[in-house]
C-alpha cells in the first residue's frame, strides 16, 4: 500500500520537479541537485542570505542584547555576587568560630589535665605524710610499750627477789628459833644465842 503510494508520488513528483525546474531556473536554482525534495519556496534559497531581513534581525538583536545586559548587570550580577560573598563570609566566620572553640576546648583539656596531675601529686603527698605519721606514732607507741614492759618485768623481778629473800629470812629465823628451842630442851641453861646463830649461818651457807 505504502509502496504503491510512493511510486505514485514519484511519478507525480517527477512532473512537479520538472515544473519547478522551469520556475526555479530563472532564479538560478537547480532543482535536480536537490533530488526528491520539492522546494516550493526555492526562490528564497537560504533565508539566512535574504539581505532584506538583515536590518530587522540586527535591530531586534541589539534591542535584546541591550535589555539582557541591563538585566544581568543591574539586577542579576549584583544579587548573585552579594549572595556569594555573604555565603563566603558566613563560611569563613563559621570556620573561625570553630577554630576558636577548638582552641578553647584544647585549653580546657590542658587545664583539666594540669589540675588532675596536681590533685594526683597532692594525693601522693598526703598518703606519704599519713604513712610517715603513722609510722612515727607506731614507733613511739612501741617504744613506750617496750619501756612499760621492761619496767613491769623489772618490778616483778624485784618482788620475786624480795619474796625469795623474805622466805629465806623466815627459814633462817624458824631454824634459829627451832634450834634454840631444841638446844634449850636438850641442854637447859646452855643456851648461847650467838653460837646458834653462827652454826645456822654455817649450815645455810653450806
Amino acid at each position, binding site marked *: 500500500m505504502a509502496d504503491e503510494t510512493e511510486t505514485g508520488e514519484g511519478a507525480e513528483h517527477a512532473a512537479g520537479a520538472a515544473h519547478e525546474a522551469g520556475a526555479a531556473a530563472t532564479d538560478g536554482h537547480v532543482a535536480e541537485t536537490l533530488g526528491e*525534495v*520539492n522546494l516550493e519556496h526555492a526562490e528564497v534559497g537560504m533565508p539566512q542570505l*535574504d539581505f532584506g*531581513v538583515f536590518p*530587522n534581525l540586527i535591530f531586534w538583536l541589539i534591542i535584546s542584547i541591550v535589555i539582557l545586559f541591563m*538585566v544581568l548587570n543591574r539586577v542579576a550580577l549584583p544579587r548573585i555576587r552579594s549572595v556569594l560573598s555573604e555565603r563566603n563570609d558566613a563560611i569563613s566566620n563559621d570556620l573561625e568560630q570553630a577554630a576558636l572553640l577548638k582552641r578553647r576546648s584544647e585549653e580546657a583539656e590542658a587545664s583539666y589535665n594540669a589540675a588532675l596531675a596536681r590533685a594526683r601529686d597532692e594525693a601522693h603527698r598526703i598518703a606519704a605524710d599519713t604513712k610517715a605519721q603513722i609510722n612515727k606514732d607506731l614507733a613511739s607507741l612501741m617504744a613506750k610499750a617496750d619501756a612499760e614492759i621492761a619496767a613491769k618485768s623489772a618490778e616483778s623481778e624485784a618482788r620475786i627477789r624480795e619474796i625469795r629473800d623474805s622466805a629465806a629470812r623466815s627459814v633462817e629465823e624458824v631454824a634459829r628459833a627451832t634450834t634454840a628451842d631444841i638446844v634449850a630442851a636438850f641442854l637447859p641453861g646452855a643456851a648461847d644465842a650467838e653460837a646458834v646463830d653462827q652454826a645456822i649461818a654455817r649450815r645455810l651457807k653450806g
Partner: protein
Amino acid sequence: MAGEAEHGGSGFNIHPMDQFKVTPLFGGDSVHWYTPTNATLWMLLTVLAITLVMVVGARGRALIPSRAQSAAEVIYGFTRRMVEDVAGKEGMKYFPYILTVFLFILFANLLALLPTSFAPTSHIAVTGVLAVAVFVTVTAIGFVKHGAGFLKLFWVTSAPTVALRIVLAMIELISYFVRPLSHSVRLGGNMMAGHAVLKVFAGFAGALGLGAIFPIVAIVAVYGLELMVACIQAYVFAILTCVYLNDALHPGH
C-alpha cells in the same frame, strides 16, 4: 499516513529551510527593520528565559541556595572562572559583557530546539553582529591599552629571521581579520545545519508510513546531538571571545 505526504501537493513535502524564514508576527508581507517578527519573539523569549533563571531563580538570596538559585550561581561561577582562566584578572572587567553574550547564545540555541520555534543564532546576520561586535571591541581595547604596542601581536619575535617575521606577520594579520568570519559562521552554520537535518528527517517520517520509525529514531539521536551542539557552540563562542580578549590585554607571544 501516506495521505499526509500527498496532502502537501507533490512528492516529499520537505522544506528544511522554511524554519529559518523571518516572517512578520502580526500579519503583513513586508519585513521592515522595526517590524516585530518571529525572530523578535524568540530573541525576547531568550531574554525572558535568562531573566527567569538569573533573576527570578536567584530571588531567594538564601544562604543555603534553592535549586534555581544554585543553577544561577553555577552559571555565574562557571562563566566567571572561564573568563578568569582564559583572559586573566584584567579580563574580569569585561565579565558582564561576556556573560551576556554567552547566555544569549546558549539560551537562544536551547530554545531553538523547541518544536516550531525559531533559531535566531542560525542567522548569519545575528551571529555576524555578535562576532563583529566582539572583534571591534577587542581591537579597540587592544589599541587603547597598548597603543601601537598592540601590533606586537602580529610580530612573532620568537621567529629567527626578520624575513620570516614579515611572512608570519602577514599570516597573523590575515588570521586576525578572518576571526569575526570564522567566529560567526561556526555558530550560525552549526545551528542551521542541525536544524535543517532535523527537519529533513521529520519530512521522511511523514512520508514513510510504518517505516517512519527509523527517521524518528534518527531524529531522537540528532536531537540529543543538537542539545550538545547548542551548549558547545555557545561555550566555544564565549571562550573564543575570552581568547581574543586575552590577546588584546596581553599582546605579544
